């Protein structure tokens, strides 16, 4: 099966998002779609699967023009998508989500026994057999939800499978399973479109790559004949500096000291120190308790035992407000549910944490606020036409930068980062790394959870590895390597 899009135009109001884009993918091929944040990748894929309709252009399947007006249409033609933003209905169970709208029936009634068995099989396939199909989807971690989404797309038996940043929420382990599945699908002749900002993955599994820049198609390459630098140049339109900017910081006094920290069952016996200007990376598999450390430090989860000291003084944040008052910041993992108020503007989101900085007697000084937001937008190169736009109209990576911006108005003493570059493009990542370095240079102690091992290795001074809620090891980032970290993360030490 060969799907081709030609001359696709799409505008949202006055903003032209896609202009004359050509894109095609054939059965038995894994085709990467790359481009900077906001380049139009998700929009193009949403057109292919019937979420949006193109303003101009055509779509052909095996040379025959087709008219895809809804996701139903697309599914009937064998085109399925895993969206960039999670779309499970939190109140429904995993299996109800999996079979939403096409529940197995018997005598007109939902056959829940069969639904459960089949859900189990699909979950097993994506390496998530441990998830109970009857569990409420909202109670799953982000990574698990992502696996359910993948299982759902697979269960549609699509001939064309679009994956919009499916690995953003996954750790190495699940990613390996996913790649195996993709290889199988490819062997069976399925066409796969793969959107990702993780260069390593692209070169590992893809056959071809198409690049978008500012809504235009700039080229298609065969992976075997191209390289990292060429792709980045196509994407950004210029040479990019170093991927991981070097940091020269001499760590100062101990800023954050954690001893024997446990919470209500997710983590126990955690102890480490982070000095001013130091970056402590946290690695581990999904569910190993990485985020839970941050949540406990931030007062979201209750600590059941242990001490937290900030600059030598004990702190026990009981809620995020207290943590923030003590000088702790937290870039959360899931921007949609925890990081942003989607219905508010970029400006209102960016200043939510430190609004008091621009207010006197509870009254906001609009001019000071706008000026600060403009500065943040410039500093982080957030791509938005206007700070007054709803934050939800930004592309995924730009939304992530807004989450970051919330904490920068007033540099925190300790900054907790949970997957800080999820969904951010290469250039944006470098910008965020620069910001991390700058904060560190100004004396902030940083704790960074990340599933991207290259990022953890390059950005951290030391790396804490978690395994099943306990800390397995702390490595010096200069002397350790991926293998050593993975071994510790899987309990091999």
């Amino acid at each position: 099966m060969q799907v081709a899009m030609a001359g696709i135009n799409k505008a949202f109001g006055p903003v032209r998002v896609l202009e004359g884009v050509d894109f095609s993918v054939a059965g038995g091929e894994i085709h990467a779609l790359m481009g900077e944040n906001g380049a139009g990748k998700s929009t193009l894929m949403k057109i292919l699967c019937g979420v949006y309709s193109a303003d101009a252009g055509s779509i052909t399947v095996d040379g025959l023009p087709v008219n895809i007006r809804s996701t139903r249409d697309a599914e009937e033609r064998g085109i399925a998508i895993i969206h960039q933003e999670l779309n499970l209905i939190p109140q429904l169970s995993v299996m109800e989500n999996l079979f939403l709208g096409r529940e197995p029936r018997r005598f007109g009634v939902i056959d829940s026994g069969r639904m459960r068995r089949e859900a189990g099989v699909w979950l097993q396939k994506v390496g998530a057999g441990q998830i109970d199909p009857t569990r409420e989807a909202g109670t799953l971690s982000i990574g698990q939800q992502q696996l359910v989404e993948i299982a759902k797309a697979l269960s549609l038996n699509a001939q064309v499978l679009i994956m919009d940043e499916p690995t953003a929420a996954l750790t190495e382990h699940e990613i390996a399973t996913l790649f195996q599945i993709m290889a199988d699908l490819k062997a069976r002749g399925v066409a796969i479109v793969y959107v990702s900002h993780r260069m390593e993955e692209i070169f590992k599994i893809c056959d071809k790559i198409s690049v978008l820049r500012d809504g235009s198609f700039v080229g298609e390459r065969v992976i075997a004949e191209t390289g990292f630098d060429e792709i980045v140049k196509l994407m950004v339109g210029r040479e990019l500096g170093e991927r991981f900017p070097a940091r020269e910081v001499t760590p100062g006094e101990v800023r954050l000291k954690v001893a024997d920290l446990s919470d209500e069952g997710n983590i126990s016996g955690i102890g480490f120190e982070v000095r001013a200007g130091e970056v402590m990376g946290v690695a581990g598999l999904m569910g190993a308790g990485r985020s839970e450390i941050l949540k406990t430090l931030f007062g979201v989860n209750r600590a059941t035992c242990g001490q937290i000291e900030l600059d030598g003084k004990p702190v026990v944040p009981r809620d995020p407000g207290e943590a923030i008052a003590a000088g702790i910041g937290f870039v959360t993992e899931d921007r949609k549910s925890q990081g942003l108020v989607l219905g508010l503007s970029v400006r209102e989101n960016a200043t939510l944490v430190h609004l008091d900085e621009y207010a006197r007697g509870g009254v906001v000084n609009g001019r000071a606020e706008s000026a600060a937001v403009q500065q943040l937008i410039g500093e982080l190169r957030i791509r938005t036409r206007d700070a007054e736009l709803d934050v939800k109209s930004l592309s995924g990576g730009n939304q992530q930068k807004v989450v970051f911006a919330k904490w920068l108005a007033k540099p925190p003493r300790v900054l907790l980062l949970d997957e800080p570059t999820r969904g951010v493009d290469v250039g944006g990542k470098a910008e965020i790394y620069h910001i991390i370095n700058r904060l560190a240079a100004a004396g902030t102690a940083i704790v960074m959870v990340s599933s991207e091992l290259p990022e953890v290795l390059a950005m951290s001074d030391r790396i804490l590895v978690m395994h099943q809620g306990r800390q397995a090891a702390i490595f010096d980032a200069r002397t350790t390597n991926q293998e050593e970290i993975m071994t510790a993360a899987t309990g091999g030490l």
Partner: protein
Amino acid sequence: MTPQQKATLQKLGPFIALMVVCVGLAFMSPDFLTVGNLMNVMRQVSINALIAFGMTLVILLGGIDLSVGSILAVSSVLTAMLMKAGYDPVLATLVGILAGALMGSVNGLIVAKGKVAPFIATLGMMTVLRGTSLVLSNGSPITGFSSDFFSTLGGGYLAGLVPVPVVWTLLMFALFWFVLKKTVFGRHVYATGGNPEAARLSGVKTDRVQIWVYTISGAMAAMAGVVLTSRLNSAQPTAGVGYELDAIAAVVLGGTSLAGGRGWIFGTLVGALLIGVLNNGLNLMGVSSFYQLIVKGAVILLAVLLDRAGKR
């Protein structure tokens, strides 16, 4: 049409509807467009508008306050009893409004700390407080208090032209507009309503915001109660039944989303005016009150349906 233009048009939708209805009524009834009648309409609207302002905050939080009618009654009865017992009318009025705030704060505590759904919490309070107003007043209206100050609150005129309740309403409108648009608290209301989890993780004390908002809603209901009592020159323990529905209708007509996080106070003012003008116009045209209900309900449904359609 760009999304911005569309959004602006949609925001102004209720206002346009109000204009259309006004023009229509002006043609149909010669009495409609007289200064006297318009002032009369505004005065009638003021009670609903005052309650609806508080309700706007509650709905912005994604909540609902069904107890406003009962709070209004308890406050009225309390104020009247105090005055009848010989207390200073200014003091009695203040105590009435404070009592409203207090009742509202109980709503807020139940919702924020007790984690009870707002619908249920305020439904319970609605019943409890209705009972309270009946108990306090022994079930009969309280009359026989007279005070110049107090009768001015609901019946007086500013400069011999603008009814005092209308002045209150406009002042409160300005205050609410300012709070929502310009203050940290207003921003926190929007953030909490839009995404409570993200707001909390950004350090917003969402519990406190909720408690304050219900407190304000209670105070506004009590204020409406003062105006009503002053105008009728008596306090009715059964006053305010069904007022919550008119207030909610005004808020929703004005374009504030019941899901929370989105809306504005100007819309609520327009919504309240729209309901008031419709009532008045139908009265002037001699439409029976039975049919009035049908028309009013149909207009609300139509407005909300149009709003939905515009959002697609």
